[in-house]
């Protein structure tokens, strides 16, 4: 079981969090087209190694945090607040 060091709450069990996927992909710009959005929705690197991913602390602070985890050893290198990782957005409401 992962124990995730939430930057807001401290070390907490994995069951308190919801996994939200790859944190390094950004939403394409609105007019990027079908291929770009298909890659955004379905394309994943699936690395055997370090992976940067979003976890939402649903049973805690409800903040989104960005965790760098090794997919083979489960070692967690760091966990950062979403705020510290901006800007990441590829554009939202027009």
């Amino acid at each position, binding site marked *: 079981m992962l124990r995730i060091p939430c930057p807001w709450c401290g070390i907490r069990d994995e069951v308190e969090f919801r996994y939200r996927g790859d944190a390094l992909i950004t939403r394409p710009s609105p007019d990027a087209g079908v291929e770009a*959005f298909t890659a955004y929705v379905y394309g994943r690197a699936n690395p055997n190694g370090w992976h940067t991913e979003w976890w*939402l602390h649903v049973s805690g602070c409800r903040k989104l945090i960005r965790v760098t985890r090794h997919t083979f050893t489960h070692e967690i290198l760091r966990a950062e607040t979403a*705020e510290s990782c901006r800007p990441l957005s590829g554009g939202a409401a027009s």
Partner: protein
Amino acid sequence: MTRGPARIGLGLLTDSAQSVRFSFDGRWMPGLAGDTLASALLANGQRLIARSFKYHRPRGIFTCGPEEPCGLVDVLTPGGREPNQLATTLLLHDGLHAESQNRWPSLRVDALSVMNRLSGLLPAGFYYKTFMRPSWAWERLYEPLIRRAAGLGRVGPSKEEHALSVETVHQHTDVLVVGAGPAGMTAAYRLGRSGLRVVLVEQDVVLGGGSLLDSRWTPWREHMCTLLDNSPSVRCLPRTTVVGAYGHGVFAALETPERKPPNRTMIRERLRIIRAREVILATGATERLIAFPGNDIPGVMLAGAAQGYLRRYGVAVGREPLFFLTSDEAYGAVFDLHAAGIHRMAVVDIRAESLAAERARALGLDVYSGCVVNSLVGRNTVQGVRIAGIRSARQVERAADCVLMSGGYSPNVSLARQLGADLHWQDDTAGFVPTLGAARGRIAGAARGVIGLAASARDGDSIALQVATAFERAAAPMAEISIPADAPRSQCLPLWEVRGRGKAFVDLQNDVTADDIRLAHREGYEHIEHTKRYTTHGMGTDQGRIGGLVGSAVLAQARGVPVAAVGQPTPRPFVQPVPLAALAGAEIQGRLKPKRRLALHDWHESAGASFVATGLWLRPLVYAREPGWEAVLREARAVRSSVGITDVSTLGKIDVQGPDAARFLDFVYANTFSTLPVGKARYGIMLREDGMVLDDGTTARLSPEHFVVTTTTMNSAAVLEHLEFCLQAVCPELDVLCTDVGDQWAQFAIAGPRAREVLGAVITGLDISNDALPFMATASATIAGIPARLFRISFSGELGYELAVPARESLAVWTALLEAGRRLGIVPYGLDALNTLRIEKGHAAAPELNGTTSADDLGLGHLLKRHGDFIGRTLAQARGSSTQGRLQLVGVRPLNGAQQLRNGMQLMVPGTQTPVGFITSSTPSVVTEGWLGLALVSAGRDRMGQHLIGASPLHDQTTPVEIVRPQMFDPENARVRR
């Protein structure tokens, strides 16, 4: 003698003043408090304990601990039969009833022991090859027969008291030390002195580990136990086995507290979930067997086990033992038994010479150096051995009543391997030793191949120092405790197998022989993992702890490679059997998951509601205790003809506020909310980025920067998470806050042609006429003196309102509404009636919003806004251009209205066998005769008026149906606007 004839002295653990009586296979015997079932049976001279798994060979006790492969028994309790209890760890208590397993009619005369004679026909893989044809016979004939013949205990009926007497404990600590031998105890003491919180876990009933077997260590052990007991930051947990390592410092441990009947409420098992910042694995090493013909018959056991029975329980396992050894460490058993007065013994040592052999000779013992035990004399019990030199064919026969063997010691690596340790071959001990990066854990003592108790204690100390340093703690001064020096030793010599006539077992629990391993190799199963699965080697409850490496060595020899090249199978949790009840803990039946009750739950209950679980919620299904449609249709009819009221508080309610709230909703919804005037509500659909519908619901604008979003009951948590994720990761530049207010607001729907009359009687300060408050309008209001939010929205298709009131006020509002509607015949209606009404209207709900339907599939494609970005836009549009054959929402009616529709019914074009769709929701109708349904049908909108066959093979039912528009009642939606 009341203590059993083989009890020759005082044991460390037994209380000779306190005798207990127990029965085995109906025979009553005496034992002592502190005995295990195995030690008491051996004290009474009972050697035959069980029949083996496959060949029904007679078996006795083989070890003195949890690694026991043979000594499994049934324990009979008032609550039933508990199978597969380990005699070597089962503590004796007065009145214990145990029975042997896998035999009929009795242990001594077992009909299926004929399997042993037929064993030449039953090699590994026999079942796979033999019972292939005819294929029907496997399930009906072969498997039941094989299962009857093979196996261990039989599971009794489930027992409630077991589930009630387990508990789960969560524990946090700085350091977890696994194993309380010299290394573990020293480490725990050292760390406790540094002020760190330590949990010291030991599977045995007492602390000491290997030091229990060496009398020179008794003062050290006793002193150490006192120090640890008095150490405020060290928690010692005997009778507790760490059964799994789960990374990040999380471990599962199973504690079996002492059980003393007849107290039935006592805890049987305690599952401890331990979270530790550092771990030291001081799990020691386990003695292994040697594969030689007949190495399984009663009277053969491990040398260390014989030493354990003597020192722990004062029991001599034989009067004329023969030792078969490969290392100096194993001679401890020789010297202990000799000191206890057993002088008629001999030693067979594979090595040409050794220091320990010299000492044994000095005691006057016969030592056969450079020799092996070739085979045994005696069939059901040991009567003697045949000894041969490793380089000569000459053979001598010698009388013996037991054979005590030791093939060396294998570090217990399971937990280390679960943490990701690599294994390396160590010649010094002829075994695999683990290496582990310090970030994942540390290993101390015999568990990492250290030889000797003193060396292990020193190793534990130095590992503890490393851990203290990692915590930046200074080395605390230690009390001076003298440690007995390790005796000088000669090198061990590995011996895996003595080949000869007869079965030489590598796995006694699963009846796997060295020949089976070779057969697996000949048939191409060269990898140890394949060999394991083909032969079942190491797959028993003992996890092959005493013979696993021997099997690897036999395979290595067959392959012509060193053992190091073969390795060992990957160990996974659990390291010993764990009762399912212990894993479940208290989370059973009603406590399996939390129940969410509506604020009005008690009212609904007193009104006679039957409840249904939707997610965690308990919702009123129908206000009738009896199942059946009659009450449902009565409720639905009241809504269509007069007025009804229902509790929809389970809907998700999310408060969205902020300067960018409208922009945000435009982004997360497929339709537009920025154009929604204050005081209005709008139905919206939310897509996933892949273009499929995530959820739907109405959103009301309370002020320019304040919206209330409602979600479906099932998706309320998922939608909130989705919104929070979007706000924090996708569009963090928007200034918006989302707050879950689902529990704060209760919500009721009042629906029916006379809904306005009911509402008008209780509302103050608001004109609710059709002009003042038209369809989809929203307003603040005071109802029965309580401030409320009023939404003119409708799920039923009737004139309707939804009222949101503070949850704590719900009863006052609800009863006021009922009172006001009484003369109009208002009825409360449940989820079933709600469902009937929405199916008639063709509104999609959870069965249709199944994650594979797009807005277009549901006939909602027109809601997608033309301009501006929103989640799911690109892929929804892309799918919009390729909708050929997609399942689309349609209505279905049976051609013969009386025929029932069923959810899940497959729909087929007459004359074909391939379904083109299926029914998602169905109900009897209150507006037309017979049944109505909604369905997802391939190109459904092009099939209006088409006749299909609905088939439900489970019910042996076929029903011709017609495809119609989903809006089967009031398609113009006129009634909601009246």
